């Protein structure tokens, strides 16, 4: 059971390369061709970007390449699209931008990928080497700006090595705990002549992660599991990124241990399974938060214990010892002390623990207790006929109208929480959202990236809010141009809703700058872009319109005018205890 550091998921092995095909490749003659060749060698199929002065040579090399390039309306969209591509495909996405403003526009998307551990390679143009540092036109210290938000970034210095550098950056992005990398490409380096073909893409020797956990630690953790009375599995995004959903599901079912997920972990375990308590945290289910509060052994896999999950650390899982499985040693005991640290690949370590277990924990009572909580705190909302349309209802209808493997992307805000709460996810890599950074405007560009990455028969639905949608609405032009089959459902309450919810709860109702009653008519705007536009105000129209929009073979936007007063519950107040979630405003 040893797993070597895997090469990039799409890497073509020597055996697969058709020798005839290889000889057909024209030799590399410039730095930019070496850059593109490095991507091709790793099987990169798509790239997202925006043209510009300093990146032009790289685009010129793309001219004859089979790599599908999607021109985005804004570089932020390119980074988010590449990020979403990586989530759906589980391999690094690629984005391109020119120097200066192009590169700085990528920053939000790179930071987003960094927080969510999404593999991403950003290629940025740069002014010629001899002008670097002179404040030349469109110059920014891109490596300096992005150093804190990348796994590592590179300043390419030489046309002879630039191909290898790009290969290394791509491999590093996908290695171990994935994350964004960046290669800054001075224009002279990409224009310079070279005949250096990039070699095999390998991550740097100093970053080899550990895949197999220490056996002694595994044995100790297994003992703890057997002895636990109230064991609880917590699956994070690492389960999905580690391609360990099979092992995770098997482990939970074989030992009958209840499962909660984090928000990025949504889809790692089917939410319609009896063992599943859905996701925990600030707006997670009451039962998931109750389980975390009362468990005596939390088996956390691939999570970094973000504060939106834990609430106040001092009240997080107060009775629990913690087994923490993670491939990144720095996550161990960063936020929550790990009593049993298991460093390694999620799937491998779960198998190791499974092998070491002699018996399943005896936890009938605990399982029953979890079911009781499910009944006590059901996810529910009111739908009287005379009320304005409820967003939760819209999400449920969308869920029903699309397949089990439909991909949901979202922006950030109340709509994101309703989508995560009321969509029943059963498959990994179907929930694509901005978790750690909380980037409003993520939904639409992510839907574009997801659409390019997904199978043709998979539906892609973007659940967005009015404020979030407005932030990157220009990407609709891309969806129209590329004829992408995307359904955008805008849950429009004419508010920055989550802010309004907090203002009402914690700022005595002073709704400073939260009102968006200047929103455009999104249905008409969609039509103006060349997409289909719909507007829905009533319950009766929801199902029919959703059906029509989903059936439409191209981008469509449904502007759902929802109850502007609706808020997201349950809610654990920021820094509060998970078990003390509020079910209504009065309880905050």
């Amino acid at each position, binding site marked *: 059971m040893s797993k070597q550091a895997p090469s990039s998921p799409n890497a073509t092995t020597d055996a697969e390369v058709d020798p005839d095909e290889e000889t057909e490749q024209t030799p590399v003659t410039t730095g930019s061709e070496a850059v593109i060749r490095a991507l091709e060698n790793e099987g990169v199929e798509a790239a997202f970007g925006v043209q510009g002065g300093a990146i032009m040579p790289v685009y010129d090399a793309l001219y004859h390449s089979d790599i599908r390039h999607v021109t985005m309306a804004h570089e932020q969209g390119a980074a988010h699209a590449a990020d979403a591509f990586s989530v759906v495909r589980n391999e690094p996405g690629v984005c391109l931008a020119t120097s200066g403003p192009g590169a700085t526009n990528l920053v939000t998307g790179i930071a987003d990928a960094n927080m969510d551990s999404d593999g991403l390679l950003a290629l940025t143009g740069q002014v010629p080497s001899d002008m670097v540092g002179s404040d030349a036109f469109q110059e920014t210290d891109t490596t300096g700006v992005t150093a804190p938000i990348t796994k590592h970034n590179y300043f390419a210095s030489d046309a002879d090595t630039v191909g290898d550098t790009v290969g290394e950056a791509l491999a590093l992005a996908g290695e171990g705990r994935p994350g964004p990398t960046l290669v800054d490409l001075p224009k002279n380096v990409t224009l310079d002549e070279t005949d250096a073909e990039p070699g095999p893409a390998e991550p740097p020797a100093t970053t080899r992660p550990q895949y197999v956990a220490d056996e002694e630690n595994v044995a100790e953790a297994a003992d703890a599991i057997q002895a636990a009375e109230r064991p609880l599995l917590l699956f994070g995004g690492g389960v999905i990124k580690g391609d360990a959903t099979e092992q995770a599901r098997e482990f939970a079912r074989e030992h009958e241990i209840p499962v909660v997920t984090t928000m990025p972990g949504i889809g790692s375990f089917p939410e319609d399974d009896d063992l599943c308590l859905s996701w925990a945290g600030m707006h997670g289910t009451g039962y998931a938060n109750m389980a975390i509060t009362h468990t005596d052994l939390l088996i956390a896999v691939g999570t970094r214990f973000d504060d939106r999950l834990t609430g106040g650390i001092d009240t997080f899982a107060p009775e629990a010892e913690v087994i923490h499985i993670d491939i990144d040693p720095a996550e161990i005991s960063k936020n929550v002390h790990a009593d049993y640290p298991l460093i390694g690949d999620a799937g491998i370590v779960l198998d190791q623990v499974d092998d070491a277990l002699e018996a399943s924990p005896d936890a009938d009572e605990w399982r029953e207790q979890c079911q009781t909580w499910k009944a006590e705190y059901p996810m529910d909302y*009111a739908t009287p006929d005379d009320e304005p349309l409820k967003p939760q209802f819209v999400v449920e209808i969308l869920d029903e109208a699309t397949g089990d493997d439909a991909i949901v992307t979202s922006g950030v805000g109340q709509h994101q929480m309703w989508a995560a709460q009321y969509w029943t996810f059963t498959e990994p890599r179907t929930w694509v959202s901005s978790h750690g950074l909380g980037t409003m405007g993520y939904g639409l560009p992510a839907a574009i990236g997801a659409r390019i990455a997904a199978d043709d028969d998979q539906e892609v639905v973007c659940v967005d809010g009015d404020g979030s949608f407005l932030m990157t609405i220009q990407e609709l032009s891309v969806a129209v141009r590329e004829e992408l089959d995307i359904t955008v459902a805008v849950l429009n309450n004419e508010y920055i809703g989550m802010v309004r919810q907090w203002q009402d709860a914690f700022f005595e109702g002073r709704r400073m700058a939260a009102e968006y009653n200047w929103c455009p008519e999104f249905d008409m705007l969609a039509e103006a872009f060349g997409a289909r536009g719909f507007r829905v105000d009533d319950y009766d129209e929801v199902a029919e319109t959703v059906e029509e929009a989903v059936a439409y073979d191209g981008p469509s936007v449904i502007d759902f005018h929802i109850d502007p007063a609706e808020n997201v519950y349950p809610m654990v107040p920021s820094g509060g205890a998970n078990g003390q979630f509020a079910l209504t405003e009065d309880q905050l």
Partner: protein
Amino acid sequence: MSSQESDEAEELPKHGLKGPSPDERPHPEGRRNSQGIRIDPAAEAEPEQRRAVLSALVEDDPGVLSRIAGLFSRRQFNIESLTVGPTTVENHSRITMVIEESDPGIDQAEKQLAKLKPVIAVGELDDDAVRTELVLLKVEGDDPDKVHAVTEMYDGQTLDAGPKTITVQLTGDEQKIDDAIDAFRQFGIIEIARTGYTALARGDQATVPGEKPGTADEPTRPKNAQQ
């Protein structure tokens, strides 16, 4: 998962779900401290800060120092000093850092450092490690004999003696340097430049786990160093 039956709808509250309110819900007693460590409620001790000397072997990539300094500043590690210089291996440098943190903080600093691509290996030095600091002191030159005597007492060297100022060099551990600075105060200190600690492990112990001194072999990242 939802209740969509419209005949039942009117009985439902506008907001909210079933189940007891937060104050009616049982709440476990045990707690964690701010470092996430589960603690006995009777002894809610917070970890104390201590000084640690970290040594990192790094590749001489461009910007390596800024990456390390940036890591310390953005993660709010409380850094006391940082020195850097080449090693016996070409293209490798050793960075010595003194930080003041709680044990979990020191542990976290080490792990975050180890994650940086140019960092080959990193480790904390034992208390018995050889550690020393260099300081340059510029004092008023009114009393050269006395200045010389104090310099001798602390095994220092006079680097520059002019009619108005005298500049001396001292090396040693922090205590010795602090004492010496106190002693020089009587002459009127004009300027001070301190380097901060540089350090090596004592005896034949490797300073950084896995390091093979004096050879060109690249030391490997220590396995399980974090456990």
